[in-house]
C-alpha cells in the first residue's frame, strides 16, 4: 500500500469514526416503506385499469433456476448439483448421484450466481458474475466460459424450447440471450430498468419471458424478436414468480401483495394482500392453489377466485418451497433456528406436519420422481425420503460455505 493509500484510509476512518446513524433509523425506513407502498398501491390500481396489448402466450410453467427437469427425462441418471459460491475465491459445485447419495469430485469454480440444467440434462450452466460456464454433466468439467463483458451474469434460465438461455445480472438493465446449441451470446436486450431481484420466467411455449425490475414492474419480452412489452405494475413488487400449469396466469409475490397477471393480455389483476413479505411461491400441479411463503407462515391462494386462505403458521421465516409432482406435499425450508428444519405441509388439509430437524437447510429441491427431497445446509446435504419424511445420512463433505442452489438434472 502506498503512502497516499494509507493516508486516504486514515483520513476516511478519522472523518467518520464517531458518526452514528439516527437513533430512529428503523422507524424512518419503515415510514419510507409505508409511503412507498401507498404510492405503489395507487399506481398499481391505476395500471390495473389499463389494457395492454401484448403477445399472447401459451400454457405451462417455468420458474427461476428450476430447470426443465421432468420425470420423463432423456434417461440420464439424475444427478444433484449443489452450488456453494465463495466470494472472490473459487467456490465448489458438488455432484451427488441420486442412486448412491455419494458426493463426487467437486467442481471448483469462481462464481456468484445461479445455475440451471439444460433440458437434455447434458449440460449445467453456471452464472459466474461476468460469464456463463457450461459444464458437461458426463465429465463434470467446466467448458469455455461464455463471456458477457461487464454485464453481470447472476441468474439464468432456459427457454422451454431448449434453444436459448436468458442471463441477467442484478441492477443491470440487460438480459443476454445465449444460444445453447453453440454456446454463443446474442445481442443483449435492454429492458430499460434495473433488474432486482433477478428473476426470469418463461411461459411453457417459450414465446414470452417475464423479467423482474427494480421499479416493481414485470416486463414481458417476446422471445422471438426480443421486443419488450409494456411493463406491468405488480402491487408492492415481486420477489418470486410462478406461472400456473395451464399457463394462463403469472403470480408475482412481493412485499405485501401477490399480483396475478393474465399472460394472455399481460394485465395485472387486483393485488391480493398478504401479511408479510413473500419469499417464495409454489403452485400445485393441478393449478388450483398457489402457496406463498413468507415470514412465519405459508398462505394458500385459490387461483380460481384469487382469494387467500387461512395462513399455515410455521413459526419461522420460510425461505424456499418445493412441491411434490403428485401435488400432495409442499416442503418448506425454514432454516432460522436453532435448529432449522424442513416442514412438510399437506396440501389436502393445509396443515403443517412435524418439522424434519436437519439444521439450517437453506435450499431444497426435489428429484423429478418426487421420491427424495435434498436439503443443503452449511457443510452438508441431507436427503429426505418424501414417503416417510425421514432424513437420510447427511452427505459430506460438501463445502463449509453457504449453499446457493441445488440443481437436479433429469
Amino acid at each position, binding site marked *: 500500500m*502506498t503512502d*497516499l*493509500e494509507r*493516508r*486516504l*484510509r*486514515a*483520513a*476516511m*476512518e*478519522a*472523518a*467518520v*469514526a464517531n*458518526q*452514528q*446513524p*439516527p437513533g430512529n*433509523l*428503523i422507524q*424512518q*425506513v*419503515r415510514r*419510507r*416503506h409505508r409511503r*412507498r407502498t401507498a404510492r405503489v398501491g395507487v399506481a398499481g390500481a391505476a395500471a390495473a385499469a389499463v389494457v395492454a396489448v401484448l403477445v399472447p402466450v401459451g400454457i405451462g410453467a417455468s420458474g427461476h433456476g428450476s430447470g426443465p427437469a421432468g420425470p420423463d427425462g432423456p434417461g440420464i441418471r439424475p444427478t444433484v448439483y449443489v452450488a456453494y459460491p465463495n*466470494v*472472490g475465491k473459487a467456490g465448489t459445485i458438488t455432484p451427488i448421484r441420486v442412486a448412491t447419495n455419494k458426493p463426487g469430485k467437486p467442481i471448483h469454480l469462481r462464481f*456468484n450466481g445461479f445455475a440451471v440444467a439444460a433440458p437434455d440434462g447434458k449440460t449445467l450452466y453456471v452464472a459466474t*458474475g*461476468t460469464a456463463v460456464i457450461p459444464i458437461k454433466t458426463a465429465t463434470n468439467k467446466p467448458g469455455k466460459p461464455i463471456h458477457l*463483458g*461487464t*454485464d*453481470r451474469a447472476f441468474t439464468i434460465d432456459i427457454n422451454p424450447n431448449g434453444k436459448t438461455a436468458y442471463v441477467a*445480472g*442484478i*441492477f*443491470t438493465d440487460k438480459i443476454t440471450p445465449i444460444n445453447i446449441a453453440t454456446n454463443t451470446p446474442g445481442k443483449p436486450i435492454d429492458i430499460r430498468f*434495473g433488474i*432486482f*431481484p433477478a428473476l426470469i420466467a418463461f411461459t411453457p411455449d417459450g414465446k414470452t419471458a417475464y423479467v423482474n425490475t*427494480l421499479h416493481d414492474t414485470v416486463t414481458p419480452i417476446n422471445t422471438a424478436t426480443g421486443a419488450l412489452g409494456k411493463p406491468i405494475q405488480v402491487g*408492492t*413488487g415481486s*420477489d418470486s414468480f410462478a406461472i400456473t400449469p395451464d399457463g394462463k396466469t403469472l403470480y408475482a409475490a*412481493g*412485499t405485501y401483495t401477490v399480483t396475478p397477471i393474465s399472460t394472455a393480455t399481460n394485465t395485472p389483476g387486483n393485488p391480493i394482500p398478504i401479511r408479510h*413479505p*413473500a*419469499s*417464495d411461491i409454489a403452485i400445485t400441479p393441478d393449478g388450483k392453489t398457489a402457496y406463498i411463503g*413468507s415470514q412465519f407462515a405459508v398462505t394458500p391462494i385459490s387461483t380460481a377466485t384469487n382469494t387467500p386462505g387461512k395462513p399455515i403458521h410455521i413459526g419461522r421465516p*420460510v*425461505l*424456499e418451497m418445493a412441491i411434490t409432482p403428485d401435488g400432495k406435499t409442499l416442503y418448506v425450508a425454514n432454516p*432460522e433456528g436453532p435448529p432449522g428444519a424442513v416442514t412438510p405441509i399437506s396440501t389436502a388439509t393445509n396443515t403443517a406436519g412435524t418439522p424434519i430437524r436437519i439444521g439450517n437447510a*437453506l435450499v431444497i429441491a426435489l428429484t423429478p420422481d418426487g421420491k427424495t427431497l435434498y436439503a443443503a445446509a452449511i457443510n452438508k446435504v441431507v436427503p429426505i425420503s418424501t414417503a416417510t419424511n425421514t432424513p437420510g445420512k447427511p452427505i459430506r463433505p460438501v463445502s463449509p460455505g*453457504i449453499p*446457493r442452489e441445488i440443481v437436479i438434472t433429469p
Partner: protein
Amino acid sequence: MSFEEFVQACSPRLFRTALLLAGQDRAAAEDLLQLALERAYRHWARVCRSGEPERYVHRILANASNDRWRQVARRRERQLSPGDADPLAPDQSDAVAERDFLLRALAALPPRQRTVLVLRYFNDLPEAEIADALGCSVGTVKSQVSRGLARLRDVAEPGAEAPAGQMRRRSLS
C-alpha cells in the same frame, strides 16, 4: 437474522460508508442509507438468502449512490476552488488540514471513482467484491481506483514541482 437485528448490528458501518459516499453531507447520507435499507427491507427474504446481507446492502448503497449522482445532474464534477486549499496555506504540515483536504478532494471525484475508493480503502473490500457490487469487471475497478488515486495524488501528494510541504492546487475535472 431479522431486518431489525441487521440494522442494529450493521447500520453504524453502513452509515459511515454512506457519509463518505455522500461527501460527508449528513442529510444526504441519511437519505441514502434509508433508501438502501428500504430497498433491502422490501426484498429481505432474498437479501437474507444471499447469506451475506451486509454485502448485499453495500451493493445497494453503492449503486444507489452512483444513481443519485447521475440524477443530481449529470452535474459537473465539483472543482476544487482556491478557497478549498486556503486553510492549508498557513500550516502546510498540519495533518488534520491535510486529511481535510484529502476528503474534500475525495468528495470532488467523479462518483464512480469515489465509490470504488471508499469501498476499497474504507470498507476494505477486495477488487473482486467491488466489481461484484458495482456490476463491472475487476479491470474496471482497478482502472477506477488507479484514476481516483492519480487525481488525489495530483492534489494531495507533495510533488517535486511544489515547494516542500505544500500541496498543489489543481482542478479535479
